[in-house]
């Protein structure tokens, strides 16, 4: 257990409000990733950080699953700002050598690519040529 972990996060921009969390679960309840992946639980990540389980939090892949949609930020009644805390955690994870330095950048690039793909599909669907089903990723896998 790393008792200073909480303070380390609070000292970084974006992590200041970590300890304001009262564990209500609004972040998890509104999170589109949590809806898909049972193990992704923002409330639990915050609690583990507060308790000082730094190794477990920083080495796990959960902190990279966040898509930075910031729904948790608007849902939080205490303004804890989980989306910003996750970015602090990613920084720390890289600094401690758990992940490659360019992971964040590569993830960003990939997100942009997904976004471009989404925009293209939208354009084609709106033009009336095709429907969303034609681009179903599930269908492509079969």
């Amino acid at each position, binding site marked *: 257990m790393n008792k200073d972990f909480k303070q380390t996060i609070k000292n970084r921009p974006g992590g200041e409000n970590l*300890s304001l969390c009262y564990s209500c679960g609004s972040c998890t*309840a509104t999170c589109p990733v949590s809806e898909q992946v049972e*193990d992704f639980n923002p409330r639990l990540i915050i609690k*583990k950080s507060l308790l000082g389980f730094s190794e477990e939090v920083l080495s796990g892949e959960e902190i990279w699953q966040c898509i930075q949609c910031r729904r948790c930020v608007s*849902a939080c009644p205490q303004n804890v700002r989980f989306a910003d805390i996750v970015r602090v955690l990613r920084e720390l994870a890289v600094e401690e050598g758990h992940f490659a330095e360019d992971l964040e950048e590569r993830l960003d690039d990939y997100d942009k690519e997904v976004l471009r793909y989404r925009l293209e599909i939208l354009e084609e669907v709106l033009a009336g040529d095709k429907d969303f089903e034609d681009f179903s990723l599930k269908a492509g896998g079969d």
Partner: protein
Amino acid sequence: MPDPVVVVGGGIAGIQAATDLAEMGIPVYLIEKSPSLGGRMAQLDKTFPTNDCSTCILAPKITSCYNHENVTTYTMTELINVEGEPGNFRVRLKKRPRYVDEEKCTGCGDCLDKCPVSISDEYNMGMSEYGAIHKYQPQAVPNVAAIDASECLKINEDKCGVCEKICNFDAIEYKQKEKKFVVQAASIIYAAGYEGFSGDLVSDYGYKKHPNVVTSLEYERILNAAGPTDGHVIRQTDGEEVENIAFIHCSGSRDRRTDKNYCSSVCCTYSIKHALITKEHIKDVNVDLYYMDIRTFGKGFERYYNRAQETEGVNFIRSRVSEIEPGSNPGDLKLKATDDDNGYCEQEYDMVVLASGLEPTQQVTDSLQKLKVRTNKYGFVDMDEFNPLSTSRPGIFGCGVVNGPRDIPESVMDASGAAALAGQHAVLDVKDMGVEAAGDQEFRVTQNERTRVGVFVCHCGTNIAGVIDVEEVKEKAAGIPFVEHAEDVKYLCSSDSQDLIGERIKEHNLNRIVVASCTPRTHEPLFMDAIAEAGLNPYLLEMTNIRDQGSWVHKEEPEKATWKAFELIRAGVARVKNALPLERGEVDNIARALVVGGGAAGLNAARELANLGFPVSLVEREEELGGHATSLKHSLEGRPVKPHLDRLIAEVKGHELIDIYAGHEIKDITGFVGNYKLELIPPVPKEVRSDKDLVEIEGGVVIVATGGQEFEPLEYSYQDSEQVITQLELEEELSSENQSLVRDDCEEIYMIQCVGSREEDRPYCSRICCSQALRNAVHIKENHPDKDITILYREMRSYGYYEDLYRKARDLGINFSRYEVDNKPEVSRKGDELTLKYEEPLSGKMITAKPDLLVLAAAILPREDNLTLSQMLKTPLNEDQFFLEAHVKLRPVDSATDGIFLAGLAHGPKNLSETLAQSRAAAGRAASILSKEYLLTQATVAEVDEELCIACGDCERVCAYKAIEVNEEENVAEVNRVLCKGCGNCTGVCRPHAVDLNGFLNQQIIDEIETLLAKDDSEFAKTGGV
């Protein structure tokens, strides 16, 4: 005559304050902005934790307040401004036009159905409609209609006018104008109440978007039998009965985004009430409650929570709901939440109720500012915790939710306390105030007359006559034996009808009266006055209710209703024919208060009573005054306690009206209201003490303020380690000069909550421990930021503004973790080293710590000698051995015994500020008795026939009021006419029929029943006879 007091707001708080002042003999102007008294409480269906019908317990209070000779009520009236100073305020008021003459309107309701306009029914939260002319609520007080000018066709377009045509009393006045007027007042009580949060406060819940999402106040109306759905829990969209319903706690409260970080304090318990009542309505319904912390911190509320947890189909889910989306079927709702302590989860429901919090209306906040009364950041009255109920402006006092979120009993306490403070400005002349004496009116002697009964049958407009053939009933009634005269009248309640009854009494020399009309609950005093006016003893009256129990319930069967009306009258005649004239008695009242306990509660109660002008004897068993408060370092707001306590003690010691008996033990207590006697053992060593040393003091009332005590924990190594202390011991540590425990090498501090509270053998919440732990932790952390502090709790109960303290504690970096009652933290000790292990429920991890200091939030216990004291006082304790109040909702400082009042920890756990408020309330309630030179007894009390009594004591055993006792010397039971409430318990158990109840004599009731059971030969034109 003392100067008047203005009370703003006619909800339960205002009504209580007005009644208490009026009972002290102080004239009151009661100002209400709506057309009826009653406020929010009148909109509630049931009240927690007893599930009492709200209207049923409130209505009698409203009626007695409204009818009190010292209360002048102005409805539809608002306060404009206040000039002057305490003792001499000039209060400018504005009365909006009602367009109905309040003197002439009898509330018959003839006009209500005829109005062609439909408008939204404010009383039903807009979920139903009534006419432009309407009664604000069915039980409106005053029982008078009102016209909504903005919707009335006559007022706006000079069309229609149907209500004027229909009204038989010439009560409609379309030309009424707004009136402005000024009243003079010694002081002002502000009790303007609150608004429930708007449903769309939390936009994620889509309140307006989803029609089946309702607020808690709307749900109260839905549950209510007189509400928009006649008490059926059905959906607005399709009228389908609900099978699956969710309640969302903290809908807007504890939320920074809504600028309402405070806890609204009542929503947890009222949601539990909603869950239980919903279950009563629909047996198989599934009820889910989504909560963050269950805050059932009030007296008896934890048991209520436990009861709900044990109810099948009521589920508590620890999760805040993030949003509500449309469900898979039309009208259904999908809630996004977590699965308790686990991850994401969604559930669908038929209906969702938002547990909306309490906030002051903008209007209330604005008018407080106009009054130059300081408000806090949430818009409530800014209150000094050492001077509760006072506002920043001298002479103006707050009570009820304007002082912050609180429930009904706390609002009622506030009200009686505010009355005690406001009364101090009204310059009471103790010798000349509130003297109540039995009327010296001489009544006609009727004992030797032939029985001549007069029967009056009321049409109540069409209310009765529309169903029942009133004329036929009258004609048949004239033929009943002993009936001398029978008459039907359009409206018996109108003032000319009262005169008519008087004339008939004289004309026909009537000596018994039967009134067949509506309910005696509201109208009996009126008819008693009418016949007393005519020189007849008012107890020679019998009312039968042929409206509520006749025309209203048998609308579809007019013939049978007519027959039933006649039967009821026949029974009424049979009963009243043997009625005896009764009189109320007088008992001397000693104008002195006896206060037992010299802690903060007792001191404060004594001070307020003395400031009102009443002599007080204060008894304290210790030599020093101050009680538990002496060991408190700082208040929950973080201010030092000692200076305030010292000042209070100095004031009490210096007050010429207060006698202090410090170091005195109570040997015995005897007497009853008006005449209590305390026998005291003075601080004389046993060896040299004799009976002559005993001190006797007498008074009209007793205030019990004996305090409580801290639980001594047996767990968590408290008994065998000096590093384990209680929160109270931590306070002492923090206030001592050289702190021996919180020193530099003490790096890690743990606090454990609910030690001895909320457990099987002590199932109550000690209420103050959460905020106390937060305060102490914040204090330490602010002075020593490097210390690591962790609070282990079950539910964080930082109610009201203490939620801000909770947030501050988290902001400072104090750690919080939950534990479950069946998986408590484990503490072990090896030498000086403490080891603490607990399972953190969110992560499921076992955490091990080595605290340097462990602080336990030990339960607040009732004093061990409560039982002895309660036996001496003959007033009961509750199941947890705290003193029991007369009614949990509406009489929170009265004990079950007349003339005994409760304050502070003797009544139950509460913090210092709440104790000070309650002791003011006890003073206010006590003053309403002390101000009377004589106490009037009821006329309808039990009476013992000494010849028949066998002194078996059965009556004594069943009397709930300790009003009947066997005199061991004389061997007969004796009734204390002051204490007897006329309930009739004793008459029911008395085997030799030695005890009878005046006004309800056994013979009268037997006559009544036999008449109802007898074969009825009378024939009715419409063959209603069965």
